[in-house]
């Protein structure tokens, strides 16, 4: 028996032929199930808070129909993105960075003013919130940046350069003004830097500096932002004014009780006591209609989603994939915390949408895009046999 006869044959698995190829069996089922259920939950809630509304005008079903349309688009985007290797995102990171700034710049130039802020761009009869897209793009840009410098993550220069990447986007969003979304950028940055292995003292130091400079930041805030913060500390000081949203939201949530008043049977949102009930304060409507049980089910789905995403990060084949997933986790967790926290007066009032549940195409499609990336990471993860 010749040596040559002994051919050590490589396993014939296509995976091994094309190590980066997608593996459909590696689609993360938990992430997928959580995604689908949350999208469905969001459509139900859109229906519940808009169909009986006394303050919205037009066809009562228009929000649900539009929501379903966006959900379809979102799912298509998710599938499409998952098909591609996420590595190409890294390749295009510098372009995506410029795209981010471009989108945010457009908003400032031709954006539509609503409620004192210029946050959306109207195109083809639809309204786009480019900052929602920008958040996801920023995750990609930062993931690429940190992944490239993963060996020098402990260096202050890395953190400094990271901040430099973040700063223009932050500033553009802040100028809209959209303090809440600009803070999402900060949360994404901190979450990713933390997961990339940045030194804790650097992160803590930055928080400390921000805290110490609070008086200066306070002075830079617009009066309505200041009054939201003071109203947060004591909503009953001006129950008809700045405290109104908070109090009405608390009433909605509290009055839902253990099992809620029943879908569409709530009164706070259809009668207009909850402002922007289909978006900013959608959680209050949910808690009123479906009660503690409904809220806990929502939380369970979120936890499932986030934990699945975290697991994908943990098992990612490379640091870029891991950081992409971690950025998405940081973004979603922060938005959930701030939006729900706002509805139950744990957080000041900001205009951050609740992922999946708030009605809004830009937000939903952006998140679907991000989750598509996560599935791509999952499908191309390091197999156990490759250890």
């Amino acid at each position: 028996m010749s040596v040559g006869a002994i051919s050590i044959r490589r396993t014939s698995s296509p995976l091994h032929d094309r190590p980066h190829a997608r593996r459909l069996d590696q689609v993360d089922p938990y992430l997928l199930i959580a995604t689908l259920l949350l999208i469905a939950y969001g459509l139900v809630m859109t229906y519940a808070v808009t169909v009986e509304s006394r303050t919205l005008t037009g066809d009562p079903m228009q929000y649900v129909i539009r929501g379903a349309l966006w959900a379809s688009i979102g799912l298509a985007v998710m599938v499409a993105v998952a098909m591609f290797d996420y590595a190409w995102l890294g390749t295009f990171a510098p372009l995506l960075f410029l795209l981010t700034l471009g989108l945010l710049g457009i908003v400032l130039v031709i954006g539509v003013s609503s409620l004192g802020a210029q946050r959306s761009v109207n195109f083809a009869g639809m309204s786009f919130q480019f900052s929602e897209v920008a958040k996801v793009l920023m995750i990609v840009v930062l993931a690429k940046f940190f992944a490239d410098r993963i060996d020098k993550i402990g260096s202050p220069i890395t953190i400094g350069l990271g901040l430099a990447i973040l700063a223009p986007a932050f500033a553009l969003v802040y100028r809209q003004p959209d303090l809440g979304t600009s803070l999402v950028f900060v949360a994404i940055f901190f979450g990713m830097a933390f997961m990339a292995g940045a030194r804790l003292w650097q992160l803590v130091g930055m928080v400390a500096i921000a805290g110490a400079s609070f008086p200066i930041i306070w002075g830079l805030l617009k009066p309505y932002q200041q009054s939201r913060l003071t109203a947060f500390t004591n909503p009953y000081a001006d129950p008809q004014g700045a405290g109104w949203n908070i109090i009405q939201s608390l009433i909605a949530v509290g009055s839902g009780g253990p099992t809620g008043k029943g879908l569409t049977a709530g009164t706070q949102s259809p009668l207009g006591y909850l402002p922007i009930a289909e978006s900013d304060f959608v959680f209050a409507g949910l808690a009123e209609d479906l009660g503690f049980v409904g809220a806990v089910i929502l939380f369970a789905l979120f936890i499932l989603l986030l934990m699945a995403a975290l697991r994908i990060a943990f098992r990612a084949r490379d640091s870029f994939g891991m950081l992409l997933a971690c950025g998405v986790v940081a973004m979603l967790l922060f938005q959930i915390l701030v939006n729900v926290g706002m509805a139950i007066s744990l957080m000041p009032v900001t205009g951050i949408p609740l992922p999946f549940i708030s009605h809004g195409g830009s937000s939903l499609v952006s998140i679907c895009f991000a989750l598509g990336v996560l599935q791509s990471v999952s499908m191309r993860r390091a197999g156990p046999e490759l250890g």
Partner: protein
Amino acid sequence: MRSTSRDFVRPNRFLAMGMAIVIVFTGLTARLWDLQLVNGGHYRDLAEQNRVLRLPVEAERGTIVDRNGKVLARNLPGFAVTVIPVDLPRAKQAALSQTLGVLVGREASDVSKAIDVQRARNPYEPVKISLRPVARDVALLLSERGELFPGVRVEAESIRHYEDAVLYSPLLGYVGPVTEEEFAAYREKGYLQTDLIGRTGLESVYEEYLRGGYGWREIERDASQREIKQLAYSPPTVGNSVVLTIDDRLQKLIEGELKKGVDEDKFTQAVGIAMNPQNGEILAMYSNPGYDNNWFINGITPDQMKQLNGDDRRPLVNKAIGDIYPPGSTFKMVTGLSALNEGVASRGTVVNVNSMILNVGGYLFYDWRVHGPVDFVNGFAHSSDIYFYTLGGGNPNTGQRGVGPEAIYKYGSELGFGNKTGIDLPGEAAGIMPSPEWKVRTFDEEWTIGNTYHEAIGQGFVAVTPLQLLNAYAIVANGGTFYQPHLLKEVVSQQGQVVFTQKPKVVREVSITKDNLALLRESARRVVTIGHANMPKAKLPIAGKTGTAEFGISAGKDSAGRNKLGFHNWFVSFLPKADNTDPTAEIAMVIFTFDSSRSLCNNCYNPAVEMTQKVLEAYVLGKP
């Protein structure tokens, strides 16, 4: 081959991130637990309070009608503007007060203050901003642009309206808002701050009957205060109608005569009252000057207030019950009955009035003419002063005995003088029925025979309200029963059911014999047939007594330039069925004119007599 190094995965940080997720959701869940499970009931109430507004539905006040159903006080539809303070942001209060002030015609500061007061008391209850009903276009503006007027509500309200306002104002009074001071007490009876209550007159006396019971309606409202739908409704109970004993026809006949006299400056003030002596029902009560009580409903203007306060005749006082006057010769009835009943005099008691002057110890007391010898009937019919001086105080020159002031006080009091009659009107005066003891108490002076003489002919200290005088003659006319005069006949519910009937209320039977009362009635009839209350072409057997009281001032002019002529003229009458003695008279009337000119009294012609004849003949004979 790609690197298999997985140094980039830091398990500790993944653990931390996982913990962060758990902590975030644990925190959120804990807060929800507190809000929904622990305090859910509280927030559920708040949500209902948001959504459901329970609004009072005003009940219409009952009408006031005369005995034949003629409406004297009714309700007209209108709009009221109210503010619910809890729905009005403080920051917007100043601007809103400004706007509302212009729309309802009030100072912005007053509007704001009213809202502040209500905010402190109960911010969930509406406070009325409009003092008078607002026009329909203002009401529409406020209700259709609700979002511009936070907390403002427009409610239909009925406005009180008085028919023949000046004619009936002394009786009906008017309604007005509850004052801040009074409100605490009224609140317990279910009143709202926006309520109107009877401020005076019958509106005030019969408030309990007239006021309706609030209904309520629950509405669902949205955040802009727009009403979405009515959730529940409980209708209000309309107030009961108060039926008066007043006969509008008689009231207007009296007005026709007396108002003409005042307008022609024959006298400055006048009172006319008619009652049924058999039960105390007041058939008419007229006091001139009156006032327009609708002024108070629509929010009295400073000019109007000045006009009322500047009139020294005091138009707001019902002269029929609220002011006291010397009764003059009409009071001879009391002197005469006292003397008859005490046995000091009888039908045949004759006094020879051969001089116009009675000289007692150098003091001179006058009669108005030389009557010659007169008996009781003639003395009363011709109103001889010296005859009644003698019956009251006696004549020391002839030794004739008088009945004395104590007896006059006793019978005068029995006949109702010196005490309120208890009529169902506020502001009644008690009058003065003097006695020797009273004089000592009041002036610290002994009673003199001169006091008795003056009292005997209705001058001096004695002072009466026109109603008291009428009531005393009504007692004579009905044979000795003091019925409490009253204006309420019955109370009728909205469904037409009689809720309450005012029965005749006997205050007392006087201790004067039937015979003596009959003699007095006969004498009163003689006043008309042979005395100086001559009634030409009389169609009715009217009996009565004139009186002319002189006042100090008989010259000058009052605040409105009217002549003050210093004579008060009375004629108290009743109408027996037969010529004289039947105690069956169904109408007694007093006509009193104030500041009459002396010329009206030529030959002691008394304008009240002619007016009485005209009124009674028109009323009794012209009965439909």
